[in-house]
């Protein structure tokens, strides 16, 4: 099997798996219990929190564990229903874990403005400035788009938010492990992350919340996570998450270099052999290894099936949901024609892919798409 769908999810890193297994075997205590077993689990969680905080230059109390990146997004958005300023500014190519949530909280008085993107999938800071209203209570703009990999000018956007004193959230699920990420440099009030996007376990993520930023809890119960997220902690998941963050940051330069190499090799080879390929997204400002490629005249669902038969796994549009093919709204918002849209696939390389894999992929693509 050749797997090129790392933006959908990544295989768990062997070191992550090892530490998770050993923790699961040795420590079952409820972190809220005050006896020895409980205290041990608590200590493991807190040390995981410190590892993550250190990796992204945050304070440990700024890290809130959640069940997913989606949950982190939901926490920040639902929190608004208790606030006075209920207008949100977002972008038109956010993940459904932002856009659908905003529709869901409309009955609570939350309104929103969707900023357009240019043909590369970037938000223009000027548009943000113009969209700010008196009751704007949150700006939520993704750091990296999941379908095309384009990186938003997040610093410029945050500067505007700071000037107007509006809290800023960014869905950074696609960013960690592919681009340097220090919360000090970013300056956002909230950032969402998901473990399985960077070789960690599924079902665990975290929200970075700046100390002074406000948050009303989404999940209420036993008061875990400093009242911000109730529910008995997923101890081994949290340990795995921390290890995955640590490995991502520790090996970041190496990983980026590797992905860049695969990407440039892939693009060069494919362009050489294919006459009908177009690459979408920003040519420079994008995370390495994520490629949105359109093969004019070839329907992506057929191409996906043909590749699947050869054991080659890529995706089209967004991989979430029930697995039904639809034109991607992200590409639509970027002004890409429907015919190009439905002939687009996403290739996302990962740490285990090799130059040989790239050849396999290019050969298969050429075989199935050259008309």
């Amino acid at each position, binding site marked *: 099997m050749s797997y090129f769908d790392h933006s959908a999810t990544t295989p768990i890193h062997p070191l992550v798996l090892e530490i998770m297994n050993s923790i699961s075997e040795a420590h079952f205590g409820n972190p809220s219990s005050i006896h020895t077993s409980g205290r041990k689990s608590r200590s493991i969680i807190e040390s995981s929190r410190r590892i993550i905080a250190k990796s992204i230059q945050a304070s440990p109390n700024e890290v809130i564990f959640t069940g997913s990146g989606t949950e982190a997004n939901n926490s920040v958005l639902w929190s608004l229903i208790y606030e006075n300023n209920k207008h949100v500014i977002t972008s038109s190519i956010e993940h459904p874990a932002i856009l659908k949530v905003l529709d869901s909280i409309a009955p609570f008085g939350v309104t929103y403005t969707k900023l357009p993107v240019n043909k590369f999938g970037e938000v223009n800071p000027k548009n943000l400035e113009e969209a700010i209203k008196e009751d704007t209570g949150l700006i939520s703009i993704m750091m990296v788009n999941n379908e095309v990999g384009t990186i938003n000018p997040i610093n410029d956007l945050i500067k505007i938010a700071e000037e107007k004193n509006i809290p800023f959230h960014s869905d950074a699920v696609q960013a960690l492990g592919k681009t340097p990420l220090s919360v000090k440099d970013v300056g956002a009030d909230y950032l969402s992350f998901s473990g399985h996007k960077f070789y960690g376990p599924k079902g665990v993520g975290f929200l970075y919340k700046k100390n002074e930023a406000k948050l009303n809890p989404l999940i209420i119960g036993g008061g875990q996570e400093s009242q911000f997220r109730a529910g008995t902690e997923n101890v081994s998941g949290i340990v795995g998450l921390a290890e995955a963050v640590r490995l991502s940051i520790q090996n970041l330069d190496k990983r980026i270099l590797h992905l860049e190499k695969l990407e440039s090799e892939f693009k060069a080879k494919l362009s050489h052999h294919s006459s009908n390929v177009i690459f979408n997204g920003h040519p420079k400002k994008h995370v390495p290894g994520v490629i949105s490629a359109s093969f004019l005249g070839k329907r992506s669902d*057929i191409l996906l099936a043909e590749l699947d038969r050869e054991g080659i796994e890529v995706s089209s549009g967004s991989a979430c949901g029930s697995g039904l*093919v639809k034109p991607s709204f992200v590409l639509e918002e970027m002004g890409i024609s429907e015919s190009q849209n439905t002939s687009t696939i996403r290739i996302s390389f990962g740490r285990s892919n090799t130059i040989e894999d790239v050849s396999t992929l290019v050969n298969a693509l050429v075989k199935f798409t050259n008309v």
Partner: protein
Amino acid sequence: MSDTVVVGMSGGVDSSVTAKILKDQGYNVECVFMKNWEGDDENCNAEEDYKDALSVCDHLDIPLRSVNFSNEYWEKVFQYFIDEYARGRTPNPDVLCNREVKFKAFLDYAFDLGAVKIATGHYAQIVEYKDEFQLLKGLDKNKDQSYFLYLLGQNELSKSMFPIGNIDKTKVRKLAENSGLINHAKKDSTGVCFIGEQKFFKEFLKRYIPVKPGLMQTIDGKVCGEHDGLMYYTMGQRKGLGIGGGHGFKEAPWFVADKDLINNILIVAQGHDHPSLFHQELEADQIHWINEAPLNSLENISAKIRYRQNDQPCNITELSMNNCKVKFKEPQFAITPGQSIVFYIDNRCVGGAIIDKRF
């Protein structure tokens, strides 16, 4: 590599066993799940069905792909469905869905995927006879679905397989159970696929067609109540008329006998055997023959005017390219404009048409 057959997989027991049988026969089987209806209708089980399809395919080690034909369905099937109801008729969307979606959009898609044939879990049989493809009834007389397939032609039949057409439904379920398929006991789907159960029907139609309530009259013109809109009623309908005692002489139930579309009046008759509920002749249009028109047999053909009716002997008395007149040997209960009349010679489905008028 062996021939690729693409199975239309609904997540139900019939299509699952279809896939299993073909795989056992050595075909290279792939399954495709069709989503033909958009929206989060609480009545639409597409997501649950998809999960079942996925589990079955995983169990059988068959790849499952998905495709969305909701545009095709909306334009070619649903618009017609609504237009017909707006005209006070009772259409049969499944017949059209087969022609426009399953045996057109899906068939094309399957061939794009590299199929040499498609297969579905229909209870019907295809035989090749003297260089022609014939459509035969399913072996299980209770489940026979040839009625819904009469709009297929030579092209479609030549590219299709119905592997469970010669098996009894009970045996199909047994096969499913023995093969460990999780859906072996799953309930058969009933009703119109995008509406779900009958009880949702009124609510559903209301969303698309303006409601025009009016009067209900007996055959002799006596007002006996009000109706909620002619589109909600179908010929021969008994339930939901809301007529209590007092109007008739006996306590026999009332039935929908006719619709006066011009004056928006629903005409009802008392007693199942009331003569106004029976007609012996009808006119039908949009005629389609699976093979050539069976001109030698026009006088001893039989027909079904609804699914699950025994074949009724009849003559086709006049026939043009598009229309025909049919005279039954016996008067027929509740002949319903908009429904399909499907013609048979013995076991063979030869074609059909859409009922327009009855006399």
